[in-house]
């Protein structure tokens, strides 16, 4: 599985968690959003950036 696929899966996980938090805001859904949902989004963006840079590096070689 390549980096982009993992990034998309992380976005899906984060989006499901944030939708649950929006539909039913409770202390536990909010905690899950802050400690799992948001880090999933951040990690997916990092993977995407790393993938872009590694692709650019391959092309320049």
């Amino acid at each position, binding site marked *: 599985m390549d980096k982009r696929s993992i990034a*998309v899966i992380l976005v899906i996980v984060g*989006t499901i968690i944030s939708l649950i938090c929006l539909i039913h805001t409770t202390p536990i859904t909010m905690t899950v959003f802050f400690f799992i949902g948001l880090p999933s989004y951040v990690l997916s963006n990092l993977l*995407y950036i790393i993938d872009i840079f590694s692709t650019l590096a391959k092309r320049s070689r």
Partner: protein
Amino acid sequence: MKKLPEWAFFVIIVIVPVLFSLVTMPVSFNRSKTLQFCNSCHIMTPFVESLKDPEVETLATKHYQHRWVAHDQCATCHTDYDFLGPADAKWRGLRHITAYYLDPKPKQPKLYKPYLNINCLQCHEGTKKFSDNPVHAASLEEIKTNKMSCLECHRPVHPEEITHKE
């Protein structure tokens, strides 16, 4: 997944998370100020019930029943009255929940730091009733610098059978 065009990846991985974060964070932040939100955590239920109990005469109950604090009563008193107060209050709340779920023997939640008088003074300071009280006038400096806590005289805040439960 590699068949998707480049812009689709950008939308899915960058735009969607930004949009969802921008909606979820303020909405959940705002909802978490309500009394219903605090009551949805079972450990807080006795505190919220005591607010509504006509037999209870604690400081928090009076503030709730007389509507001295019109809405979001828990958050209004438990949020420090400064620039980062609301964010800090939410962070402390998240710490309470995380500690509760990670602790094998969950304890009664306690304040992480002493209660600041500024949270009382944000409403009471400058009011006639507050200023006319000779005790307040004599010890205003101590009250403002937290050397003397408002709660030393104005207690109990919540029923002691709940706050001292272990």
